[in-house]
């Protein structure tokens, strides 16, 4: 029961954070909303016995990624209220309908199995510690893991390249024409 209360509280926090992210006019608020949600999700991971993932979630997402976001927001100076009026025709109703549709479809699809609890947590001793995950990761998934190593390397190099050459590369001639 206590678990459920914790879930309920943080579920509300997560939803609120996501909602704030969605509607806030200032990207800084959006970032803070997302931060809330991510932290809540970390709590859920703890509830789900995934302690290592929870730690990673806090360290990488709430720590690194969101900080990076904040940093970029500050760096390029968009930390101000923006115009949220919609210029694309029908984009807003379509977006809302699609979002509701997705949620609806997923819930409908999953309702049979999830909410009734037929597949409840039958195996209580799942131990999401570093050890079990490492066994799995370095046993079965060695090659994909090494793939992520490459991916990260490439990402790092790419980022450096973008940062190094992006501003100094040839700029397009500003012909005064508004992009359409």
């Amino acid at each position, binding site marked *: 029961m206590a678990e459920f209360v914790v879930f309920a509280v943080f579920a509300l926090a997560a939803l609120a954070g996501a909602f704030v992210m969605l509607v806030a006019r200032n990207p800084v608020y959006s970032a803070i909303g997302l931060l809330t949600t991510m932290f809540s999700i970390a709590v859920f991971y703890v509830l789900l016995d995934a302690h290592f993932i929870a730690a990673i979630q806090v360290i990488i997402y709430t720590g690194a990624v969101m900080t990076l976001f904040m940093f970029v927001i500050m760096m390029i100076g968009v930390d101000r209220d923006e115009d949220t009026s919609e210029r694309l025709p029908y984009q807003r109703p379509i977006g809302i309908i*699609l979002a509701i549709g*997705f949620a609806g*479809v997923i819930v409908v*699809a999953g309702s049979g199995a999830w909410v009734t609890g037929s597949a409840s947590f039958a195996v209580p001793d799942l131990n999401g510690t570093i050890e079990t995950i490492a066994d799995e990761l370095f046993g079965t998934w060695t090659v994909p893991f090494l793939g992520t190593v490459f991916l990260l390397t490439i990402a790092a190099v790419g980022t450096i390249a973008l940062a190094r050459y992006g501003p100094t590369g040839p700029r397009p001639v500003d012909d005064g024409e508004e992009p359409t």
Partner: protein
Amino acid sequence: MTDLIWLLIALPAVGAAVLVFLGRRLGEPGAGWLATVTVAASFAFAVVSGVGFVGGTVHPATVELFSWIPALGVDATLLWDPLAVTMTLVVTGVGALIHLYAIGYMHGDPRFGRFFAYLNLFIASMLTLVLAGNFAVMFVGWELVGLSSYLLISFWFERPSAAAAGKKAFIVNRIGDWGFLVALMVIFAAFGTLDFGTVFGSAPEVLSVGTATVITLLLLVGATGKSAQLPLYVWLPDAMEGPTPVSALIHAATMVTAGVYMIARTGALFELAPVSQAIVATVGVLTALFAATIAISQRDIKRVLAYSTISQIGYMIFGVGMAAYTAGMFHLVTHAFFKALLFLGAGSVIHALGGEQDMRKMGGLRTVMPVTFWTMVIAWLAISGVFPLAGFWSKDEILGAAFAKGGLYTGLWAIGLFTAFLTAFYMTRWLAMTFLGEPRWSDDVHPHESPWVMTGPLVILAFASTFAGALNTPWRLALERFLEPSFELVTQSLPPESIGVVAALAGLSLVLVVLGIVVAWRRYTTAELPAEAGRFWYVTLHGYWVDDLYGRVFVLPGKALSAWFAAVLDGTVIDGIVNGLGRTVRGFGAAMSTLQSGWVRSYAAVFGGGVLVLLVWTLVHGGVI
């Protein structure tokens, strides 16, 4: 000896090859002599290897050189029999004389060497035709003589009329060749081979009358093209654009008689198709008459001879058409002599007058050019058929055979007889306008007798024209016996057995010939040329406007159709469809590209919509909802 008869072809062929590459270096007259020597050598070789047929010491033989088109089982084979010997001797004999003559005639021409290369090429081609041992090799010669003819007619290609005449000759010949080609297709399908021996030997068992008729009529189409018969004769008068030795050699003596030779050679097939024989004979005799009427009013010294050639070949076709093969071949030989002589004489005149060909500007040349004149007199008598010159014997043998055959052929005989009268008339007119009467040439030309290289051949040919009749007189059938082995498979039509009937027929034709000569003599040996006005003269002068007719019926609509194909069907319809498809696709692309708004979020919406649809579809399909 017989195994080496390929040398007959090889000698002039090598001569031609050498002259093509070295003609300029050999120069004048070396190139001419080289060419003449190769042809004369061929002649000598032909005499040596053919003389055995007379005594019966040599027998007809097929010589296999090499396998040519194995896909069709066609080999390069030559056939050495009396018929081939006869043709070879005519071609190389007359050919050598004309080569010699051309050394004088072509004097000073900048492409002297090239001319003799072409002449040699022609001799080689013509020998391929006559020596062929199967239809395929014969067709090779058949087309190659067309090529040489084209090259020689257009020899002075700077003159547009010469170039056009050469082209016309080749194309009209090709129309005839088409008939020959289709005939070969039918023969190959029927026999599985093109070999003369097999085809002729098995023809009676293999061919139905219908197929035989089809084959022979197609062969006739080929013959009408090559031998300038109705309706494909139109190229020959134009072919006079070529140098005169060419006219003499190709368009009088040898190539144009190829059709006659071919029908004689394939007699075994015609034997099975009496209908074709009648058609061939009719075509021949009608051509003889038709061309003779046109020859009457021509004013160009060579065009008269050209129409005369058409007419005389009509006689030959008439002869071989009714299976009087010996008679046809006999006339072919004698005609080769006197027609070559006539052309060479005409060439001598043209040469003397500095290129003038209009007979109205000639006259009175008998004193200036005595050798030419007297040889022409012989030729004139020979072609007119005056006893005892060559033309008399050969022409009357054909007419006699027709008379003896009776039925339809009696009518044809009558036409032939009338044509003999016309022949005598126009040839007398020709001689009178050229050599007799008062000189009508302008003062600045100074006619002279030609050099010996030109008159020499004239004299030899005059000699031959006089005595060639002895080859096959009713009393002494030398040629007939000689040719016997070649015509074993056919039943020949012969002149009447009774010497009395023969004499009566000859007398009748002689009367008509003399009548023709007298009428023309009285009309044309006057001081002033008679006015040739009136409808008959006008119509025949223009050759019944057959050329115009062909132009309007075939050439113009053909060109219009081609232009319509090119512009409308290709340019508008097909390319219109293709380009229209292109435009449609491009338009569709342009329409679709408006979907490409560039707005990422629109793409995302479309993408999301698509995922949602797939999701719902999966769920519905999986039975979840």
